[in-house]
């Protein structure tokens, strides 16, 4: 059994991600209906992603008057691309599409393109509200990136490898979430923040009339919104190999465990989202830098000491 999936999976990966995204969007519609006191039948919710996508496909694209079409287009396209490329190292089962030796760094480097993407879309639209949205995401990014990196590093230290499959293999007995709960929580927070979604949705918030996306119409909006959901799905799916034991588990085959765990993480995130208001930047930045970053560093230190105590570096 080779460490990598056959090449055909590279084509299947976007399809899988989109399917999960569909399910998550539908679940989000259901949860929103329930939270708003106007429940949506699940048949309607299941069709909503398709209806919205069709509506945007049929819709006219909008030119940003006096804006930078080129930069806006690049920004919009980079968002889904970054999510797909980040997902390349996700083990679907026990094997990923690409088993890079520095898979964790690859994941981090790809998702960080969202910084550039959102800012470019906000800038290229030539509208005050869009630009405020773009800047909000950069401010938010500066706050979540450090705890996020330390959470990733903690998982890598626990497995003593940057290879995602090694991290999964190291969790055969004990899931990392047990020995590094702080890193897990920090990672989940940064998942939502990275996808500027839920409590971290200020960059596309209602107060700035859709923020970075305010001027997008038609297929541009579809690509942007899809990219955002794909980022959320890819990042949430990454929590499974890093902290939740990947494909390990009794009875079911590895791929089924990965799917079940991914959906469970996403369900938890969606359920939480509708209970929480949006977090404002100035609050989050200070909390993230003063509380979360030291906490994740301490977590990394503890895990390092445990790893050293268990027989030192391999």
């Amino acid at each position, binding site marked *: 059994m080779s460490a990598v999936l056959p090449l055909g999976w590279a084509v299947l990966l976007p399809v899988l991600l989109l399917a999960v995204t569909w399910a998550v969007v539908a679940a989000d519609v259901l949860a929103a209906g329930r939270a708003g006191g106007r429940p949506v039948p699940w048949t309607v919710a299941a069709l909503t992603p398709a209806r919205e996508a069709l509506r945007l496909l049929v819709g006219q694209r909008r030119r940003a008057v006096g804006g*930078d079409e*080129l*930069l806006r287009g*690049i920004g919009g396209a980079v968002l889904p691309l970054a999510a797909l490329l980040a997902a390349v190292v996700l083990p679907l089962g026990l094997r990923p599409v690409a088993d*890079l*030796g*520095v898979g964790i*760094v*690859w994941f*981090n*480097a790809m998702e*960080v*393109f969202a*910084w*550039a993407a959102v*800012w*470019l879309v906000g*800038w*290229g639209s*030539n509208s005050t509200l869009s630009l405020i949205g773009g*800047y909000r995401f*950069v401010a938010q*990014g*500066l706050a979540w*990136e450090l705890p996020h990196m330390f959470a990733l590093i903690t998982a890598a230290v626990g497995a003593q490898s*940057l290879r995602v499959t090694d991290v999964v293999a190291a969790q055969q007995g004990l899931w990392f979430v047990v020995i590094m709960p702080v890193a897990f929580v920090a990672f989940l927070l940064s998942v939502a923040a990275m996808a500027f979604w839920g409590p971290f949705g200020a960059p596309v918030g209602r107060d700035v009339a859709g923020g970075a996306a305010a001027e997008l119409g038609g297929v541009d909006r579809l690509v942007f919104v899809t990219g955002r959901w794909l980022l959320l799905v890819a990042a949430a799916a990454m929590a499974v190999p890093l902290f939740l034991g990947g494909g390990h588990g009794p009875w079911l085959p590895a791929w089924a465990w990965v799917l079940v765990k991914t959906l469970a993480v996403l369900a938890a995130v969606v359920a939480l989202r509708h209970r929480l208001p949006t977090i404002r930047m*100035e*609050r*989050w*930045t*200070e*909390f*993230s830098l*003063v*509380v979360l970053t030291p906490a994740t560093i301490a977590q990394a230190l503890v895990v390092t000491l445990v790893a050293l105590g268990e027989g030192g570096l391999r």
Partner: protein
Amino acid sequence: MTTALFVVLAATAVVAGALVFRVDSMARATFLLLLSFLAVAGLVLMTGLQYVGLVIVLMMVIEMVVMAVFMIMYMMNPAGLMSMSMFHNTRGAAVIAAATFVALAGGALLVDWPVRGGSPAPDPTMALGESLMSGQMLTMMTLGVTLFATIVGTVVLATGRGRYDRLGDELDAPASDDRDRGGVGR
């Protein structure tokens, strides 16, 4: 194949780097510079240094976005509504650039290239880590602390309102008088 990839990446790095000085918009200049850096990161990846290459990608994306924010904040003509020039001191710059180019190209052409001794480590990332954390430990620690001290020093010098302004000379005010409050409440 490898040669073609090298040529494409190298040409992208150079052309994008040169275009930085041709465009009017600060945003375009910044992201052309980013493109140039990404092509360099691709070249580094081609040498087999996966970790270093990806860290270049990671850091450059973040750095360029942050740089764009600052450049646009301070620049007169951020969006390129009117044509502007990115050149200053053109004559001096041309002399320096030409001299640097001649020195580097001359060095590359004239110096005898050493013959490779030894073989690459099986895992360059591991080798890099071992080198940094054993032989070069003192260098890295000194560097790290110096950089961190520089950052802290710059912030302290640049900040308009330090903690004594916010919390009083004895630092004993129950809460600061900031207009916008942070998340921890200090």
